[in-house]
């Protein structure tokens, strides 16, 4: 990772705005599903980091305890240091929280049944497509060759077939990397 730049508001401002918009688009699949867009934004459009650094940031956040959205914290930190980390985190967590509060405040009842169902069920296929896209761009971002893809498939199979805690799968991945299997 390169040295994070000094906080530059001309960088943090757009980052905050973009992340805030994306936070409201992460419906049904969590913040993981906006990862391709975040990667496109920080890697392809702005060259704030490389694809490999993005994949590494994601993997590091996965290895840490806490909500899955923390990879955005690391991305923000990478882009603009501490200010960037705070800005990214607030942008991802803030708008959805405010929206949740507003809806709870407006009504003690649940979101109207049929509409919520239509939104939830309707958007589910899009979330699925976006999650596949996330896995795809993370894999492409790593410096791994075909053996990395095999590791990806093994990890997916392990989680689907067993009840193993994902964190052990991450540990196994790190070990496989260290001993030179990928």
């Amino acid at each position, binding site marked *: *990772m390169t040295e994070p730049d000094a906080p530059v508001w001309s960088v943090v401002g757009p980052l905050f705005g973009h992340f805030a918009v994306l936070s409201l688009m992460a419906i049904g699949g969590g913040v993981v599903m906006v990862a391709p867009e975040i990667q496109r934004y920080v890697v392809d459009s702005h060259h704030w980091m490389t694809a490999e650094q993005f994949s590494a940031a994601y993997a590091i956040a996965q290895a840490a305890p806490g909500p899955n959205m923390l990879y955005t914290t690391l991305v923000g930190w990478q882009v603009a240091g501490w200010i960037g980390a705070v800005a990214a985190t607030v942008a991802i*967590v803030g708008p959805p*929280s405010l929206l949740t509060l507003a809806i709870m405040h407006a009504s003690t009842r649940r979101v109207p049944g049929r509409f919520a169902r239509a939104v939830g069920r309707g958007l589910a296929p899009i979330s699925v*497509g976006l999650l596949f896209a996330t*896995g795809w761009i993370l894999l492409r971002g790593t410096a*791994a060759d075909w053996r990395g893809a095999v590791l990806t498939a093994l990890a997916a*199979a392990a989680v689907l077939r067993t009840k193993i805690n994902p964190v052990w799968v991450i540990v196994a991945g790190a070990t496989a*990397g260290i001993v030179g299997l990928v």
Partner: protein
Amino acid sequence: MSDPPSGRGDAPTAVAPARIAPLELFLAFSEMALSGFGGVLPFAYRAMVERRRWVDREEFARLLAVAQVMPGPTICNLAVMFGYRRSGLTGAAASLAGMVAMPFAIVLGLGVAYQRFGDLPAVRRALVGMSSVAAGLILATAIKMARAVRPRVVPICLAALAFVGVGVIRFSLIAVIAVLAPAAVLFSWKSDD
């Protein structure tokens, strides 16, 4: 600030939930977040339903359902909803802060370590392995979710278009969602019976 809307008068069975001090919420959600290696949700369930008995299983499922429909990080939405219900805006803020603050510090600590040691060959190789595996974890989630999607032409096309548009062609997500989401909701609304 303002009190959470009580359930009183809503329905005969609804009882105003007991208040929980913001500090307790903060500590409880911090604990859940810090236990949450590989996903906080199972730990939230264990803590809120089984250990502290703050909510029963049905109530937890209801909270979760709404938290999932809302945009953003599901587990954070859940913390906000529960905190607000039990201690108003202060409670919502305390719960959310509990969920985020400590993990934030830890992940930045790891980031700093990566910045320092990321160039070491062993660290680099470990991260390549971890990234490959992380991609696999996401694919597993995608496959699990795909099983719940109705095997009909329109949903499958929507999933494929989202994947290709965002993952392969690399269109902006905003553009892809703007095109696909209205079609998806409309289809789902029409075929809802």
